[in-house]
């Protein structure tokens, strides 16, 4: 029966691991479909981590923490949006700048918190609506699922989805049809920021109940890879997140189960990235994303 216990534990961890990826991925998926790629998702998530944690430790309320996290990440995302959409600076470059700011800001704030002794969360902060077993998941898991489905429906079946696809593939045509391209892009990028902040809050407040500098540990970048791997669809993204969650869970279990005695632990820690790389290789030839990704609009003639 211990296999059942292990399997359950692995599935639980898989789902839990997939949550931040899926949440941040939802927002980024829509933004990328509209042609804006935000390499700074990593930084935005980290911002959510620290903001959520700080407010949680100050107030003890998980809801305020979530709000603060989303707000903080949203503001940073808005800055990113203004710089890339209105000042038309290159998106990749600006995204890296956002990462730098986020790392610096979060580290600074963390040190300040530590200095004031605010570096611990009251126990019991959390929200797990359903009971034990596989579905003993944090409430955010269910929200993530719903968001993913809504995103998918939005893209495939509503006019908003058509508009987003149009903005990403042919913004000139969209504008000629009366669509305020830049306003849509701005909104979607800020939305992606809100989601990233939420994912960050999940990491620090809900899952780990703590903060560690740079705790996002490249999950933001993995989100980018997953959006591509999922070929810019919600279903693909969801699948990818599950896959990733599974790999992380399995490799953690292997380490805990003592496999490190004959395989160096770095193999395990490096495994998710290798798999991500392989996944990107496999989708070769179908890597056709939105046609105007990373191209500012309107084009300079």
């Amino acid at each position, binding site marked *: 029966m211990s296999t059942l216990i292990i399997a359950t534990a692995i599935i639980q961890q898989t789902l839990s691991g997939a949550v931040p990826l899926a949440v941040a991925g939802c927002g980024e998926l829509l933004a990328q479909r509209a042609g804006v790629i935000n390499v700074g998702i990593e930084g935005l998530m980290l911002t959510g981590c620290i903001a959520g944690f700080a407010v949680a430790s100050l107030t003890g309320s998980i809801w305020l923490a979530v709000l603060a996290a989303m707000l903080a990440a949203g503001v940073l995302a808005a800055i990113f949006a203004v710089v890339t959409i209105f000042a038309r600076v290159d998106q990749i*470059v600006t995204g890296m700048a*956002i990462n*730098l700011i986020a790392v610096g800001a979060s580290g600074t704030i963390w040190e*300040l918190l530590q200095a004031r002794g605010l570096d611990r969360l009251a126990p019991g902060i959390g929200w797990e609506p359903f009971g034990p077993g596989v579905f003993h998941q944090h409430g955010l898991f269910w929200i993530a699922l719903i968001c993913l489905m809504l995103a998918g429906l939005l893209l495939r079946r509503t006019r908003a989805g058509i508009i987003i696809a149009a903005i990403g593939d042919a913004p000139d045509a969209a504008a000629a049809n009366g669509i305020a391209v830049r306003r849509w892009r701005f909104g979607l990028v800020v939305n992606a920021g809100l989601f990233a902040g939420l994912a960050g809050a999940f990491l620090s407040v809900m899952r780990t109940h703590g903060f560690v500098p740079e705790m996002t540990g490249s999950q933001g970048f993995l989100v980018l890879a997953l959006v591509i791997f999922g070929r810019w669809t919600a279903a693909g993204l969801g699948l990818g997140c599950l896959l990733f969650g599974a790999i992380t869970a399995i490799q953690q279990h292997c380490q805990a189960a003592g496999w490190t005695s004959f395989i160096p632990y770095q193999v395990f820690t490096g495994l998710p990235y*290798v798999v991500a790389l392989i996944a990107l290789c496999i989708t070769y030839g179908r890597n056709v994303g939105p046609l105007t990704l990373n191209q500012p609009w309107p084009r*300079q003639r």
Partner: protein
Amino acid sequence: MNATWSSAVRTLTVVAVVVAVTVLGGAGLILLAGHPPTAAWAAIVDGVFAQPLTLAIALEDVAPLLLCGLAAACAFRAGVFNIGGQGQFLLGAVTMMALATTWRPPGPGWLILVLGCIAATGAGAGWALLAGGLERWRGVNVVLSTILLNYIAIAVVLWLIEGPFGDPSTSAPQTAVLARSDRLPVMLPLSHFHVGVVLALVLAVGWWLVESRTRFGLELRMMGGNAEAAQALGVAVPRRRLHTFALSGAFAGLAGAMQTAGVTYFLSDSMVTRNSFGYLGVAVALLGALHPLGVVAAAIFFALLDGSVRALEQELHAPRDLADLLKGLALIVALIGGAWLMRSSQRRIRGPA
């Protein structure tokens, strides 16, 4: 003449604004943390600018920042978004250590250093070419592959310094310490301000010449400007992109070698996971507007910024990550300033054809 003068003035304005924002931003944050700015300024002057020694210590970081900056700059110029400086740096560092400790061939110290640098350059180039190959033959997005390879590099290097290249005399995950004879000579005693800085400067100037005066540099700039047109004009774009990857990785690998051979003298696991010269190199490159001399200035700026924040940390217990925050801020301002410069110089030239 008028146009060049006013564009020079505008560039200087942007530079001044960037510096001002950084300084003022820092001052503001210091104020927020409860310390009077005058005390902060005194601490900085004392800790960094007062003596040649302190200045030299602050500028120790210029070599890796400059080289990683050149790595990113030459790649971005050619349209190759190599964000993998981090991993390439580490590969270079571990190669240098391997050659200088575990696999040290017999010979004088300087020979080892030279061989180590060459090998490290090759290692960095090779790691970058992994991403290049993935792009060319599997169509994998460069930004993602280089970032992922960074993390893989960390894992690989950690294993290497724990295993084959580790120091046999201790169980700690680190390499052996370099013998005195095998270290990069220092230019100012009591500091780590080593000759590598000079080499880095020379390479920066060299790259400037190559970029602006050779066919290779021209072709890289063509690719960066418009890859389709460059291809139509006869540039072998896929091949040149691979060359760019190699060059970029080479710079970063050399940075890693110099940092271990000139400053730290060994490589430990915390050094592997904590250092971020690769990513800072990207920031330096962008701040320097991808121009080699700009990258030099930006590297010096960042090094001084780091030194200042360290001084503040010592004297006033200011948070260390302040430096990163200010760097990010400077970068965003520089990006916006750059966009403004571009726009204001884009006046359409009217005229019947």
